[in-house]
């Protein structure tokens, strides 16, 4: 009896968390799903119309394509550079200042980063003085100025470079911690066993870093699916640089189309859930090993 009477105690402790999660997470999600089946003013039920638009319209196709570009190139390079820098920085004497400098872009707001890179990419027609750093270098070397943010062949990659610039430091710091967690004796054992530096990295360091690389990669994937600020500031999705999150913002605040914006939000959520699950499972596996 005594036992039964106290059943409500755990609920009491969980109540604040449940309340906050309910109000700020569960309710908005349910609301968003609800609105995604209504028209732009949320007055008339429209069925799957918003989703049909999201999956078939040209502008959304561009957004999907660009998100995939971001997903592949941003993730590969940001994790790759982070890994290379983490391992190489460990070998130089000026490791901490080097890492601080590489990490520094993280401290700048993304909007700030966008503005900085807008100057780097600035473009003037041929013959006019180039105020953009990149084009100034190119013309000084006798090349033709490039419209980095308007040329459809390069502009998406130009934006992705900004993202990489911002996030490499973060990946480096996390991977560096994992690298330093590998006992030195293991690397020495490999060297004595006859491994070259590359073989030591390939057969000992890398396999031991896989769990951390996986966590960093999935975190970056989640990050990139939501990519917004860099695109918003630098091109606002023009010239074929649209991404899902920016489109969602436009539908919501520029066109006041709550239905379409909600549909894009739901699609983004569904895309992120599998990655989240992988991350959570990975985390649980690691906890189980402890």
């Amino acid at each position, binding site marked *: 009896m005594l036992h039964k009477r106290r059943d409500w105690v755990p609920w009491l402790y969980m109540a604040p968390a449940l309340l906050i999660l309910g109000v700020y997470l569960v309710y908005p999600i349910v609301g968003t799903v609800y609105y995604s089946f209504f028209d732009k003013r949320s007055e008339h039920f429209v069925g799957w119309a918003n989703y049909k638009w999201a999956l078939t319209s040209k502008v959304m196709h561009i957004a999907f394509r660009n998100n995939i570009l971001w997903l592949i190139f941003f993730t590969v390079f940001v994790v790759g550079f982070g890994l290379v820098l983490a391992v190489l920085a460990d070998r130089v004497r000026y490791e901490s200042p080097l890492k601080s400098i590489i990490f520094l872009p993280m401290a700048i707001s993304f909007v700030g980063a966008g503005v900085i890179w807008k100057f780097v990419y600035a473009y003037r027609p041929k013959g006019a003085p180039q105020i953009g750093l990149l084009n100034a270098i190119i013309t000084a070397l006798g090349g033709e100025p490039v419209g980095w943010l308007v040329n459809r062949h390069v502009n998406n990659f130009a934006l992705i470079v900004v993202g990489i610039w911002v996030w490499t430091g973060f990946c480096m710091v996390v991977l560096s911690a994992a690298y330093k967690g590998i006992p030195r*004796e293991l690397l020495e054992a490999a060297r004595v066993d*006859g491994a070259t530096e590359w073989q030591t990295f390939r057969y000992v360091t890398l396999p031991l870093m896989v769990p951390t690389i996986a966590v960093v990669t999935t975190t970056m994937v989640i990050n990139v699916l939501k990519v917004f600020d860099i695109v918003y500031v630098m091109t606002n999705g023009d010239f074929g640089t649209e991404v899902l999150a920016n489109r969602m913002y436009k539908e919501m605040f520029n066109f006041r189309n709550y239905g379409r914006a909600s549909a894009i939000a739901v699609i983004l959520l569904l895309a992120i859930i599998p990655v989240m699950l992988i991350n959570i499972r990975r985390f649980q596996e690691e906890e189980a090993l402890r």
Partner: protein
Amino acid sequence: MASVTFEHVTKKFGDVVAVNDLTLHIEDKEFLVFVGPSGCGKTTTLRLLAGLEELTDGHIYIGDRLVDDVPPKDRDIAMVFQSYALYPHMSVYDNMAFGLKLRKVPKDEIDRRVHEAARILGIEQLLDRKPKQLSGGQRQRVAVGRAIVRNPKVFLFDEPLSNLDAKLRVQTRAELSKLHHRLGTTFVYVTHDQVEAMTMATRIAVMRDGVLQQVDTPQTLYEKPGNVFVAGFIGSPSMNFFDATLVEADGKLFVDGGSFRLEVPPHLAEQYRKYKGQEVIFGIRPEDIHAKPYVPPEIFPAEMRAQVDVTELMGSEIFLYCLTPDGRAFVARVDPRTKARRGDVVDLVVNMDHMHLFDPKTEKRLE
């Protein structure tokens, strides 16, 4: 199989001299143990030999080959680390096969060698496991196995027993000795435990503060330690030291410690007479001090009195922590039948055949 030669080897870390002008020749097939307290430079010496540290000065040869600038992978050595350093993501088999795979040894040859090593070490049934699933003793065997499959010229051991419990350590000690006989390869072994050194080594190199103190067989090191440090380090409990004077009376030579006076045996008196009248450090091991009723035969006895401070019964013997009448502490290792309690005054007999004399200034052995 190869000899190893250190020639005026020095290693500095910044201003700290870890190894100071070490010159030492290790014979082929020898089991040489570096021993000394922590920070004496023994592990650094081993790492220099492995190529894991760069020399500041001097040369190292493996066989006739100068290896100063040769990377570890090309030195043809194998090393067992203190932490064992097993690759946690590989099975026992892969751990042992790793070095062979890197050397592109044919697959069936790898298989043969790994299984043979596993059989020698009794770990055949563990080959599929991961290091995490093994006990400390099993991990240690795998680490040794990883070294022996390679058939290297020299084996290096960096305190390989320090993570094992006492019983397993004793057992593994004997197994390593057997392994050395069986393989007939040069072993270089580092430990801070003088018992390990005494039991396994063909020769022991005692180090202190980066300086080599003495290299000799365990027997010689025990019987004729070259200085006070070696005398105190080898043997357990440590040798007792007293400040004393050599005096002559009635044609006999005595060690005069103030509160005790012990006769030097005639065959040693001849040798030591030249130090007559000088201050010396008198050293005597606890096992050479006996309780009066249980004195073994055929020793040169000299009597002294002492007060018992603490007794420790070890079963097969008793450690008596005593004080001389003028309050100097020393230890005696006496017969377990001895009846002595705290506060008792006991009659002790010192075997002066095993006395040691050292110069108080240089701390070197007087011959």
